[in-house]
């Protein structure tokens, strides 16, 4: 099945207008030796056959649709209100491109402007951009922005070990030729803000922490922010947007940038993407921020309207003088997040956050009561917590899976000093029944 509508007659008329005989005649510029190679691909399927085949492949997975899941670690199984998908499936949204022509793109432009506004309000910041690829690249872009802010003269980045390991890895990849001094793990895996503050010096461009951190812990970073600013450095908080439904904002902690993963805002887990990197900052840094921005203006008819603005910062104008090459972003996912926040509003966002909090604390308490399991930290946490186990996490997870439960994240994969440390996430979707099932299967593990 192709989507090519030409009849043979139309094709021949067009060829005649062009002045060639055959379609092949259009390709003489291609070296003859390499023209029309064989393509070893399976034969074409009809739509019906493709639907069946894809269905079969999807069913070879065991997803959170059938299993009970306590896996988080940066991706969370939240309820997605039905209206979101219906709006995303409006062809006017999903089959349009970047709103370069504002006269016929006000839908996308106003939706992004509203997303920017809600993101700024949620994080307690002044402005948000139109999105980055995901949480990890938003962190890497924050590092780039800080380096550019000091014109490359400050080389140190203090990044907490409590920042998602894959975000730290992505930052390392992005900056591997930039000769930076990225520190943070020295302060320990389960480090505190005070220990991190010790690493800040006058060469530090940026301090990055996560909120709640990768282990679920909630710290007030106000003093760390003060320490960063005292050294003249910028301060970035990687925030979970669900937690911001109830927790003190990073803006109140005087962050200069608040970035993170927007997936919890109504975006399907979809095996890792596409997601939504959000990036917010202070008005004074807006010209330093990468990515697209939508601003309010008026049109020639006196109507309020929106338009891409400060575009001279971007690669298509600035070319080799641009600090970021970002072009396509996550427009449709920003729309999803905007619809999610509009539907939930202040009440719903707070409600979901509290549900996650209560359920996670119930789960933690029950698990801590089991012999052979204890909570590894005593700091406040949000919807994720670390359990110290006697058995290897892989074995525990295998046992859970036999009972239809996707267990938590094995922290030993990323933190060599955290073998037998299990990171458990609980969201509003996990019922008491599911939590109790988790607890009873965990209880069995130690009996075995």
């Amino acid at each position, binding site marked *: 099945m192709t989507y090519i509508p030409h009849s043979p007659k139309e094709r021949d008329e067009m060829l005649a207008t062009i002045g060639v005989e055959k379609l092949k005649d259009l390709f003489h510029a291609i070296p003859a030796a390499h023209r029309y190679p064989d393509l070893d691909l*399976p034969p074409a399927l009809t739509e019906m056959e493709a639907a069946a085949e894809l269905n079969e492949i999807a069913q070879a997975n065991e997803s959170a649709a059938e299993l009970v899941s306590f896996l988080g670690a940066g991706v969370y*199984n939240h309820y997605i209100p039905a209206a979101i998908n219906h709006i995303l499936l409006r062809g*006017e949204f999903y089959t349009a491109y970047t709103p370069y022509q504002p006269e016929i793109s006000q839908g996308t432009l106003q939706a992004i402007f509203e997303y920017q506004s809600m993101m700024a309000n*949620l994080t307690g910041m002044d402005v948000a951009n139109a999105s980055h690829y995901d949480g990890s690249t938003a962190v890497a872009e924050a590092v780039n922005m800080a380096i550019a802010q000091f014109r490359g003269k400050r080389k140190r980045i203090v990044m907490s070990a409590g920042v998602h390991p894959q975000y730290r890895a992505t930052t390392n990849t992005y900056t591997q030729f930039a000769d930076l001094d990225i520190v943070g793990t020295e302060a320990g895996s389960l480090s505190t803000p005070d220990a991190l503050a010790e690493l800040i010096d006058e060469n530090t461009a940026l301090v990055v922490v996560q909120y709640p951190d990768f282990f679920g812990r909630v710290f007030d970073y106000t003093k760390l922010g003060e320490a960063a600013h005292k050294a003249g450095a910028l301060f970035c908080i990687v925030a979970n947007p669900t937690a911001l439904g109830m927790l003190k904002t990073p803006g109140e902690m005087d962050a200069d940038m608040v970035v993170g993963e927007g997936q919890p805002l109504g975006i399907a887990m979809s095996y890792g993407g596409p997601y939504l990197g959000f990036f917010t900052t202070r008005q004074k840094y*807006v010209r330093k921020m990468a990515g697209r921005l939508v601003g309010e203006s008026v049109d020639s008819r006196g109507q309020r309207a929106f338009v891409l603005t400060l575009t001279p910062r971007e690669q298509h104008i600035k070319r080799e003088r641009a600090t970021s090459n970002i072009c396509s972003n*996550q427009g449709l996912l920003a729309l999803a997040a905007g619809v999610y926040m509009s539907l939930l509003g202040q009440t719903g966002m707070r409600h979901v956050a509290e549900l996650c909090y209560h359920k996670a604390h119930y789960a933690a308490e029950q698990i801590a009561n089991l012999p052979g399991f204890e909570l590894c930290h005593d700091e406040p946490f949000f919807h994720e917590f670390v359990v110290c186990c006697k058995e290897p996490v892989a074995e525990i997870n295998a046992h859970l899976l036999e009972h239809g439960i996707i267990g938590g994240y094995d922290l030993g994969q990323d933190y060599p000093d955290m073998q037998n440390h299990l990171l458990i996430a609980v969201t509003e979707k996990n019922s008491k029944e599911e939590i109790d099932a988790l607890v009873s299967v965990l209880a069995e593990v130690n009996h075995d």
Partner: protein
Amino acid sequence: MTDFKLDGAPKIVEPTVYELSSPGRIGVDFPEPDVPRTKLPDAMLRKELPLPELSEVDVVRHFVKLSTFNYSVDSGFYPLGSCTMKYNPKINEDTARLPGFANLHPMQPIETTQGALVLMFQLQEWLKEISGFDAITLQPAAGAHGEFVGVLMMRAYHRDRNDMKRMKMLIPDSAHGTNPATSAMSGLKVVQIPSDERGNVDLDALRAEADDTLVGMMLTNPNTLGLFDENVEEICQIVHDAGGLMYGDGANMNAMLGITKMADLGFDVMHYNLHKTFSTPHGGGGPGSGPVCVTAELADFLPAPIVDVVEEEAEGLPPLFGLVDPPKTIGRVKAFHGHFGMFVRAFTYIAMHGPDGLRDVSEYAVLNANYILARLRDTYHVPYDRICMHEFVAEGRWKDAPDIHALDIAKRLMDYGFHPPTNYFPLIVHEALMIEPTETENKVTLDTFIDAMLKIAEEAHATPDLLHEAPHNTPFGRLDEVKAAKDLVLCCWLPENYGEQ
């Protein structure tokens, strides 16, 4: 110039969600906790959460209303050059949303995600076959991200050989802005290579820069003029002789499917744009997906992880697929494994087209572009006029209509019901109009578009103000971009007295 003088406050066509907000409304509710409540951490709670409050019907009507202000591929012809705005098959949206894909957590045990991993492995194989390369990563999130990954791998290759003096990247003057931005972002010096009178890379200028400080060259082929570079093999040879690597920007792969393989021409690295060539929707600006293919020489540098067989097929059991880190990997370039939802769509698209269907895609994309070119070239000057590939670039200006710019033509096209072509780019053509019809448009659509273009050319001479003041028939007129950049209103808020309403 457009006059933006305002009498009083601007008219609000559709209020924002903040303006539609009313205290106490909610669009979706959640149950009360079924577990005992835990004391909240008072000192850590936020004081206010100034988000809007709407009912579900408010939200749906608002966004449906906004959607009607958009022009899209589903609304009509969208010949935006270099963006490949082809039709996005509906089945792809269904397959990507299958519960077995949509509810899959990226860090689940691989034993529970074999369907997803098989799909990714198969897509890797197909994309390698279509381009002729030996290895691939699906991880990059978009074309520009893929470029960045490719350039990092090129640098890592030289670093691995202890060849640290290579800091120069050659980029044709016709290149998209992401190419120089990517190179600069990777810390490289960008040297621009001019085009010759046929729109090819100027070989003498290339030879003059091809020395032992070369990281390589980034070349889009077909290039941004829509022309296949007639000397592509020689270009690759010159760069290779200087010890450099050839990066192929695959933005224009829609002309090349089953027509030629980029690896056979001499390229070492290439990114795809699944959202262009393989019809994953553009989403109003994203998400994209930018897999990067490489030759065997560069395979060890691919980003981590890639999908591979981790346990061979044995005793009637199928092979086990898993995620593997290449030995000299440049590292991870984003969290998790790439835009999986886009992989499902591209997989569906390739499976349905098969080898012959893909070749048809390119043949008909090129047919459509040449047909428009043939009918417009007497009216619009085409500076590099030869058989084009999937797009071509005309000038939107006439000596005898001095005040008319490409922008005016673009805006007037909206009045005729079309999305305009790309009109700021490539920079080497004055008042460029870059037209890419794609293969999914029928002859009647093309003829209607061509007729509109011819009519606009007449209007440009007879009634130029009609163009200057265009568009007339759209829901909004031209925007005051100066005001937007000067006032910088990037965010709105609930009114100060909101709680008292």
